[in-house]
Structure formats: structure tokens, C-alpha cells
């Protein structure tokens, strides 16, 4: 098996390299075909390699070169890496195919795809290297390459999207995060012979609590930059809005996950904390991130920016799950830790899939209408019927509506937070309760947000002045979108197949296996099960747990079993059964209704609007109006400045225009970005006092410096 995996990886790098060279060299329209085909093959290979690794349940490792200064470089594909690699491949496939839609000929002249292709393949290679790196130097070098390539790719259409400030902020934050991560690795490597992950893991066991805290904080916030956590994520909305539509599915679906991978690798695998403190910090930061993200997403009207904030929200949920898992593990509840971590990993996979779907859908909307402003959209369901169905699937998934995938992972996350009842310390329990409430509020706001997105864009009547473009392409649904929507659906109704796969990564990290309690075998096998008492199993038969055992393949019962031997308490939810029931009821209802109304004539009449002659677009509800209650309720967080501007003619009595402009700065900007910016400016101004232009002083500086150096050398 190992050879197959190795072979797949080698093939992957080969194709990547070929693709890179070919797209740089070939003229005309060839680069696009190269891009699509080679990239698709590469992503398929990623999935194959990861799939084989997961199937074999063994770690694959291969040594690469040996560098004198940095030690041996190696590739190591363990279960955690395999899951992330599979998720990356899952998203890269539709992202590659979708390039065709965005590579219009008009853009080819200004932004040649050859340049994009080169960067695309380089990024793909660096992502795989990050995920399969077996030691710190390879990891860090690939990470840095990935950051720079992301910066270049975000600026790919810089002249169209305005200045490159957003990407520059991203680059600056990435470098700052990278620096923190390097320091974290350095602390971890203090007592280790070389830089490989295995040695590091062994070495950190001997580190003191303070060092572990240091590693945790630096690693968490350093990787948190990429993951989009609250104090350090102010680059994310700006960047996602500025990124070109070709690149943004990759940015949102793949590179975001690298942040989670980094956190898990460094803070859960290599240097896992012994106390509950770090885990609580992660849980708290995650919850705050989720809440802030969804608040700004709900009140945002630009679709891309809204999806960016929603990514922040989902990142928060994932990190909260990770934090909960760390707390449980440090308190000795391995099973609960495993469940929480499984939920977080599931959410990560789900998020990649539906976020890519939504971003690609948003790109299609922008291509078809020319605008991203939800206030002026509306009525797209008639214009883009296929897209409306697929986009609806995406919206339902992200709003955590069964039977789609978002529901399973959010339900599991909230359930795992409920397990905090078994913890001992009351302060910890209170914090869990608060964070659980914040996540529940987030889930509710997410529903509001995506109801607004779908309804205001697709339903209703057209509100803006835009004209539909590219009518030929619109009617046919795109393969990539259907693929992603099907993935959402399948991940939703077949959790029983996904969880055992995730469990392989969860096991070593949490110290326990989640499968047995999340997907007990008595639902997937015959009732002769030794683990649980016969009477208990019998009760389950009474409620029909074995129904359809012969016909239905993986009857998805996702069950959470709580503790006690004799009378285990079960919280059960089956999206699969739910879907079957929904389908049956839907079919029966449709059947009855069509039979009952057969022969009746349906008359279509114009919309009733109170008897006015015509319902104008300005009379229909807007996206701003829909989300205004949220804006008003959470005013303390938004803190807008309202500038009133009322114009009148002749007298105050005759008003011609009323305008109340809202200006607001993002909470994180206000509290962190501007503060950091001001601090740096202050410091720079302080240092600038040195630059007063007097030559004598400069000579004096050199003298002082020289003396200091001499002193230091003398001492050593």
C-alpha cells in the first residue's frame, strides 16, 4: 500500500510540475486547458493518495533530502494529514473545472492565464507539501511559499479590483503569524535532537507548563491568522472581497483549512497542553469569532464580503470544537474529546464543500448580473433556475438545515459542548455554558443570514437596474456546482460512513475512539452485540432501530451515548431516516394533491398589492430591511456613526430627500487593527526622531554601535 501512496504522490508532483511548465510556455488558449485538465488530475491524485492512506490506516512516511543545517526533510502522511489532503482535493477538483467559467477571452488579454496557471500549480504543490510535511523546516518553507503565492494570486486582477492594499494586509499578517509560528516551533525544538515532528512530539513531553503555554499562544494565534480567528482576522473580509473569482474558491476552501491543520498539528499533536487553560482559550476565542463573524455577515449586503464573514463564523465553530476537545482531553475525558474533535473535523470538511459552492455560485451571479449587491438583486430564480436550486442547497447546508451536511456537524458540535456537564470545575462549566449559548445564537443568526441571502437574491422581483448577461451559459447547470451540491447532500445523509473515517485521525489526538459511541455497531450490524446489554438493545428494537436493515445501506443513526452502563442515555438523530421520511411524505403529498385537484383549472393572476396599479421594485423588501432588526439589536457592537442629511425645498415642510448615512468600522478593526496600526505609527514616529539629518549624530550612532559590538565580542 505504501508504494501506491508514494506513487500517487510522485505522480502528483510530476503532474504539478508539468502543468506549471506547460502553462508558462504554451501560447493562446492552451494554458486554460492545461490548467483545467492537469489541475483536475492533480486534485484527483490528491484524493486518491489520501483515500489510500485512510483505507490502510497506517502512516506513510518517506525521507527526502537531508540538509545539514535543518536536518532530514521527510514526507509523512498520517491520518490527520490524510483527512485534510482529501478535503483539499475534494475542493480543488471543482475549483479547477470552474476556471473555465471565469476565463473569458476579454480577461485573457489583460490577465493572461499562463501567469495564473504557474501560480496555481505552485500553490497546489505547496499546499500538499504543507499537509504532508513530516518535519518543521519543510513545513515552514512550504508555508511561506503558500503565503507569498496567496498574496500574488489575490493581486492577480489588481488593476480591476482597485489597489492591492487588501492583499498587502494579508501578507503582513501572514508574515507576523509565520514569525510567531517559527518561534513556537523553536521553543518546541529546544530539547529535541532534530526538527522532525516525531522528535518534537517526544521532546515537548518534557517541557514545562509555561513553555507549553507559550507554544500554544504563539501557535494558536500564528496559525489563527490563516484560520481567521478574531483578533488577527481583519485581513480576511478585505481579501476575500478583493480576490478574483477564479481564485476565491481555493482561498476559502483550502487555505483556510491550513490554519486548522497548523493548530491541530502543533497544539493538539506535537505539543498538546496538559492543563485546561489553553483549551478554554481556544474555545472562548472560537465562540467570539463565530459570533462576530455571523453578526457582520447578517448585516452585510455585498455577497462576497458576507461569505467572508460567514467563513470567519465557521472557523470559529471549528476552533471552538477543537478547544472543547483539548479541555476534555486535559480533564481526562477522552471519549468526549474524541467526539468534539470529530465534530470539528467534520465541520471543517463540510465547510470547505459548501463554502466553495457558495463562492462559486456568487461568482456565477456576478457574471450574470454584473453586481454583487444583494439590495439590487432579486428575481434571479427565473433568470438562473439551475443555479437557484444548487445555491439553495448551499444555503441550506450552511444554515445547518437537515438533511444536509451543515446540520450534522453543528449538531454534533453543540452536543459535544453539552458534555461539559461531566466536568468538575464550576468555572469551566460556566465558560462552556456561555460559549455554548454564543454558538447557539450564532446558529440562529446564520439561518437569518442565509434566508436573507437566498430570498433577496433569487426570490422576489428584480430591484436594481442591472441587465442580464451571458444568457446562453445561464440555463445549463455547471458540473462543478452539481458535484459540490451532491457532496453536501451525501455528507449530510451518510454521516455513519464519514465518522469512522474521521475517527482514524481523532483517535491518536484525543486518546479515545469516537466511533463506538457516535455510530454504535448495533445500528449497522445485527443485534447480537456484546458491548451493550440485551434489554437495552431490545428497547431499541421497539423504536424501530433495525427497520430497513436489510434494504437500506448505511442507515444513518448518529447517536450520542452518555456514560452509564445499565441505562445509557441516548440523543439520536438520523438524517438518513429523516431524508427518507421527507421523500416519502413529499411524494405522498404530491400524489394526493395532484389526484385531488385533477381537472381543476389554475388561473394565474398578477400579484395582489392592495389595488395599486403596479408593484414597483422600490416597494419590495430589501436585504437591508430584512437584516435591519439585527443591526438595531446589536447596535452596541456595531457602533455606527449616523450622519443625517435631509434636503428640502422652499420650506422644511417640503422635503426632497432624506438620507441617513451609516458609517461604521468593524469591531476587530476598531479594537485591534487600528490599535496596532496606531501603535506601530507611534513607534515609528518615535524612532523617526533618530532621523534628524545631522551628520554628526549619525557618526555618533555608528560609534556607539561599534563599541557595543566590541563589548559583546569581548564578553563572549
Amino acid at each position: 500500500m505504501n508504494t501506491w501512496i508514494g506513487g500517487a504522490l510522485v505522480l502528483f508532483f510530476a503532474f504539478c510540475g508539468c502543468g506549471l511548465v506547460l502553462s508558462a510556455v504554451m501560447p493562446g488558449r492552451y494554458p486554460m486547458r492545461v490548467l483545467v485538465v492537469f489541475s483536475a488530475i492533480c486534485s484527483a491524485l490528491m484524493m486518491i493518495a489520501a483515500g489510500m492512506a485512510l483505507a490502510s490506516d497506517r502512516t506513510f512516511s518517506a525521507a527526502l533530502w537531508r540538509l545539514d543545517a535543518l536536518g532530514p526533510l521527510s514526507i509523512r502522511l498520517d491520518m490527520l494529514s490524510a483527512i485534510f489532503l482529501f478535503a483539499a482535493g475534494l475542493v480543488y477538483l471543482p475549483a479547477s473545472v470552474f476556471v473555465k467559467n471565469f476565463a473569458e477571452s476579454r480577461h485573457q488579454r489583460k490577465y493572461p492565464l499562463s501567469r495564473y496557471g504557474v501560480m496555481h500549480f505552485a500553490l497546489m504543490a505547496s499546499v500538499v507539501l504543507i499537509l504532508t510535511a513530516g518535519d518543521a523546516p519543510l513545513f515552514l518553507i512550504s508555508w511561506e511559499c503558500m503565503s507569498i503565492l496567496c498574496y500574488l494570486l489575490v493581486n492577480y486582477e489588481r488593476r480591476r479590483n482597485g489597489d492591492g492594499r487588501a492583499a498587502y494586509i494579508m501578507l503582513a499578517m501572514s508574515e507576523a503569524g509565520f514569525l510567531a509560528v517559527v518561534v513556537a516551533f523553536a521553543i518546541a525544538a529546544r530539547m529535541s535532537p532534530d526538527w522532525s515532528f516525531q522528535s518534537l512530539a517526544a521532546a515537548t513531553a518534557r517541557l514545562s507548563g509555561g513553555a507549553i503555554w507559550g507554544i500554544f499562544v504563539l501557535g494558536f494565534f500564528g496559525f489563527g491568522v490563516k484560520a481567521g480567528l478574531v483578533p488577527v482576522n481583519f485581513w480576511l473580509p478585505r481579501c476575500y472581497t478583493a480576490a478574483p473569482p477564479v481564485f476565491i474558491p481555493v482561498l476559502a476552501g483550502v487555505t483556510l483549512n491550513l490554519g486548522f491543520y497548523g493548530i491541530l498539528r502543533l497544539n493538539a499533536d506535537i505539543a498538546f497542553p496538559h492543563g485546561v487553560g489553553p483549551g478554554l482559550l481556544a474555545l472562548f476565542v472560537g465562540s467570539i469569532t463565530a459570533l462576530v463573524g455571523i453578526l457582520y455577515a447578517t448585516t452585510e449586503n455585498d455577497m462576497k464580503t458576507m461569505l467572508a464573514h460567514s467563513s470567519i463564523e465557521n472557523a470559529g465553530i471549528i476552533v471552538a470544537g477543537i478547544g472543547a476537545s483539548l479541555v476534555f482531553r486535559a480533564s481526562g475525558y477522552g471519549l468526549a474529546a474524541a467526539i468534539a474533535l470529530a465534530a470539528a473535523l467534520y465541520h471543517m470538511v463540510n465547510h470547505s464543500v459548501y463554502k466553495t459552492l457558495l463562492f462559486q455560485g456568487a461568482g456565477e451571479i456576478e457574471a450574470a448580473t454584473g453586481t454583487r449587491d444583494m439590495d439590487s438583486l432579486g428575481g434571479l430564480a427565473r433568470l438562473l433556475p439551475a443555479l437557484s436550486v444548487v445555491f439553495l442547497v448551499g444555503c441550506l447546508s450552511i444554515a445547518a438545515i437537515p438533511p444536509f451536511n451543515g446540520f450534522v456537524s453543528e449538531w454534533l458540535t453543540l452536543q459535544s459542548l453539552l458534555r461539559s456537564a461531566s466536568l468538575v470545575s464550576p468555572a469551566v462549566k460556566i465558560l462552556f455554558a456561555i460559549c455554548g449559548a454564543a454558538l447557539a445564537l450564532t446558529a440562529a443568526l446564520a439561518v437569518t443570514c442565509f434566508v436573507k441571502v437566498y430570498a433577496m437574491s433569487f426570490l422576489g422581483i428584480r430591484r436594481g437596474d442591472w441587465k442580464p448577461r451571458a444568457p446562453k451559459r445561464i440555463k445549463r447547470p455547471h458540473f462543478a456546482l452539481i458535484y459540490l451540491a451532491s457532496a453536501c447532500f451525501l455528507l449530510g445523509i451518510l454521516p455513519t460512513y464519514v465518522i469512522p473515517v474521521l475517527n482514524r485521525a481523532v483517535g491518536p489526538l484525543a486518546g479515545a475512539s469516537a466511533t463506538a459511541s457516535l455510530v454504535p455497531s448495533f445500528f449497522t450490524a445485527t443485534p447480537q452485540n456484546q458491548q451493550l446489554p440485551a434489554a437495552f438493545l431490545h428497547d431499541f428494537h421497539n423504536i424501530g432501530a433495525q427497520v430497513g436493515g436489510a434494504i437500506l445501506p448505511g442507515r444513518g443513526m448518529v447517536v450520542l451515548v452518555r456514560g452509564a452502563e445499565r441505562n445509557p442515555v441516548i440523543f439520536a438523530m438520523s438524517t438518513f431516516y429523516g431524508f427518507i421520511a421527507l421523500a416519502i411524505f413529499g411524494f405522498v403529498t404530491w400524489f394526493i394533491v395532484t389526484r385531488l385537484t385533477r381537472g381543476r383549472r389554475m388561473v394565474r393572476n398578477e400579484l395582489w398589492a392592495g389595488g395599486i396599479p403596479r408593484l414597483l421594485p422600490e416597494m419590495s423588501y430589501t436585504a437591508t430591511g430584512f437584516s435591519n432588526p439585527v443591526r438595531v439589536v446589536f447596535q452596541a457592537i456595531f457602533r455606527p456613526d449616523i450622519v443625517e442629511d435631509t434636503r428640502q425645498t422652499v420650506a422644511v415642510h417640503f422635503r426632497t430627500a432624506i438620507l441617513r448615512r451609516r458609517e461604521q468600522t468593524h469591531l476587530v478593526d476598531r479594537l485591534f487593527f487600528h490599535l496596532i496600526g496606531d501603535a506601530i505609527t507611534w513607534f515609528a514616529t518615535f524612532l523617526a526622531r533618530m532621523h534628524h539629518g545631522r551628520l554628526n549624530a549619525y557618526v555618533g550612532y555608528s560609534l556607539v554601535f561599534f563599541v557595543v559590538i566590541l563589548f559583546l565580542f569581548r564578553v563572549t
Partner: protein
Amino acid sequence: MLVTPSPLSASKRMQIEEIEAAVRDRIGSAGLVSRVDGGVALSIALLDPMALPAISKFLFWESACSFGGMIMEQLRDNSRLSYLFLSPGSGWIDVVLEVPSTSPTVPSISAEVHAADWHEREAEDLFGVRFEGHPRLGDFILHDQVWSEGVAPHRKPQSHSTDADRHSLQHRPNADWRPLLVVQDPGAFAMPVGPVYEGGLGQSVHFLLESVGEDVVRAVPRLFYNFRAVEKIAEGLPVSRALLLAERFAATSSFAHSLAFCLAVERMSGIEIPARAKNLRILLSELERLRHHAGAITAICESTALSVAASQAAIIEERLLRSSCQFTGHRYLFGLNTPGGVRRDFTAKACAELLKVMDRVVSELRTLEQGLYLTSSFLDRLEDVGIVEPNQARDLNFVGPVGRASGQAGDLRRDCPYTGYETCEFQVPHEIEGDGYARLRVLFQEAYESAKLIHHAAKRLEPGAISAPCDPPAHGVALGWAEAPIGAALHWLRLDDSGLVERYRIITASFNNWLGFRVAVEDFAFQDFPIILATFGLSATECDR
């Protein structure tokens, strides 16, 4: 114009003299000031139209007069505009302007006297007068969706008696018509309400509530869906027939409007009404007011969905309707007023029965009132909601219970008494807060005062005639007024040489109050809109005529 001496008391004349002197100073040779009658105490005939805005501003703001209305007439060669102001101790002041009929152009006074806004728009729509300086003419009574501009159907010599004439007034509907939307915030929308709208009012009114989501930012009503051109139909009719129109254009205040009409005819005939008729008129006016206020209270309770209280108020109202029918033969008091008096007499027994019903109604109202003031969920919807500040009420010239709830304590029964009110003792309740709760309190207090007045009038009924013979004179012109339940109602009547109606002008309280209604609704939440509408108790059909 006939000049008949009227019994104005000496103290009142003093104040008129002050105003007269001040006005003389201001206009100098640009006009003539004289004291006349026909209902009007002081008449200012302007020779220079440009002096109009300054005089109006002086009268409205500096002399603390309220604005009664504007009467537009088309005489043989000229168009005559008459602006009525009411000086609270003195009586009506009439500023008259004549402009040539061929190209009538008048300076607009709406910039200073905001209450004149709709009067000018109506004159422009119906007569084609241009008001210079008014920024928003057109699309008022004759909706632009239905009528093209410039139709001016009231302008003579348009007649409407033949089908050919009617056809010539046919309109070309404008399919591209868009409403004027003022709020320009991004994401602002205008929610349409009506004209077919069941919520509470039931009458045909159209609103476009402009908002960004929570609060209504701008709410300007679009009325005149019930415009039946009563003023035009009345032209050429005998007075007895025009009386039917006066009764029926706003039937929930039918007695008050027919009373104002009859007072105008009686004033121009110069006859004296028998005392019994005056007392009966007071009794019936107050009966109508009491029934109307019971209906308004029912509507307020229904709008806040306090069902039991609404049912109890509805019981009171139905009892009053049945008593009205039992006592006078019609539930809404049709057919009682006639020029010269009333047409039906009432026995002492009937009066006693009526008083018993009144007492029962008053005690039920008091119980209801106490119950309502103890219901905090009900008061929450009314207190500090739909606020009309006193200065806004003054600026926009609110009349009636709505105005009195915002500090405008004017009441025609006390300021220019008619039909014997000068001998009655009664309070005019008023409040200052101007919110829905204040309007509710005013309604209850006025209802109790009405009951007291009914008792008072019934006690003073002396045997005697119930009407005096009245012949409307040729070329008669007079102003009649009455305090209708919603507020001041003015009826201006001019007869031609055969005693038929030449010009009939009706200025109603609803027309005045609908203009200012928007200040109560703006900056309050959407959900409060139906409640504020109910607390105002306005009638679209009274405004539309």
C-alpha cells in the same frame, strides 16, 4: 355681500380692532380692511397679490390665528380666493384676493403657513390656479395614474350634465407613473399600504411607508380615492337638495355638517332660530359626538387587539346608534336639520328615556376607562407612541381632539359659539403630551362633556316652535361652521340670482388633520402605524368629499 349686524361682544371687538390696526399698518395701500358680517368679522381685500404671504404670516404666526382654509371661487371675470383665519377671541378673518380668470397666478403661502399646502394643491388640481413658489403641485386629488395633468374639472364653464361633456373629461392614464420617493438611504424601500386595506380603518387610503427596515422614515398619505366632487355636484341645485349632499358626504358627522350648512343659509337669510330648535340642535350634536367618540375608542381598542375592551366599547356604540334611531328615526341622524331649525320634535318622555340611556352609557364608559388605564400592555402601545409635539400641532394646524391632545385648545363651540353654545357651560379638555394616550384621554373627557351638555340641553327645552321659515335669498353668501366630532367644519355658500347654489365650499377637519398625520407616524416602528392611525380617528371620506 349682505351686511347684517351680529351680536359680537365689545371685548371681542377690541381684539379685532388691534388686529385691524396692525394689518392696516402693514398693507398700507395694498388693500382694504373692513369689518363685515356673513359670519366673518374682518375682511381684508388685497389689491396686490404679492402682499399675501406677508399678511398670512403675520396673521398665522404673530397674531396667533389658526388657519381655517382657503375658498376658491370663479366669478364672472375674476377668480376670487379667500383665506380664512380664526382669531381665538375675535372671530373669522378673511383675506380676499381677486385674480383674472384667464391666467390665475397667486403667490403661494405654504412656505410660511404650512397648513395651506393642501388647500393650494386642491385649487390647482380642480381649478387650474398656479401657485408660485409651491414646489409640489399636481397629482393630488386627480391621481396622475388616472387623470392627465391640466384637466381642472371644477373650472367654469365646464359642465358635467351631458355625456359628451363627461367624455371630454376623459383621462389618459399614465402607465409610467412612479410615486415620489424621498428616502435615499441604500436599501430603503417603500411599503405600499392600501387603498384596499382592511386593517381597522377600512376606508380607501394609500400609504407608501418609506423605511430602511425598522422605523418608518416617511409616510405621506395619498387620499382622494373617495373624491365624489360634492362641491361641483352642488352647483345649480336648490338649497334643499344641497342639504342632502351636506348630510351625506361624511355620514358619521352628518348632523354637524348639515348644521353648518343650515347655519350658513340662516345667516344669509338673517333669521332668528327659535330657542327650542337651538337646544335640540345642541342635544343632537352632542349625541352625535358621543356616539362618534365611542366608535373612536372602539377602534383604538381593536387596533391594539384588546378584544374584550373593544367589544365593550362596541356595545356602547351600538346602544347609542339604537338610541339615535329610536329617538330620531335614523341611526346616523339623517334628515333632522333644515334651514330654520329642526324637522322633528321630541316628547318629554322620549327625552327622559334618552337621558336614562345617556346615564347608563356614561357609567359604562367610566368603567371601561378605568379598566383601560389599568391595562399596562394596552397603555404601552399608546404612551409615547405617535407623538405630535405642541409646536408641530400649531405649525400644521391640527384641529379637533387630535389638536387638543397636543395643546391646541381651540374649539369652535367656545371660540365662535353657534346655535346657543354661548349659554352652555362646558369644559374643553386638552392635554399636552400629544401621544396616543393623550388622544384617548381627550376622547373620554369629551364624551363625558357631551353627556353633560345633553342633560343641560334637555333640561332647558321650553315648549315652542322647532323651526322658523327660511327663504334663502338671491345672491346670498355666508359662512357656516360647526364643531364636528373630528374637528372644525366650515361650509361656505354662495347663491346665484335664482337662489340656487353657485358655489359650495366645504372645509373639513379631516382635510386639515390628514396633512399633519405624517409627523405622528414618522420615526416610529412599522407595527405602531395601525395604532397611530386608530388614535387619530380620521375619516378619509370626510377629507375627500
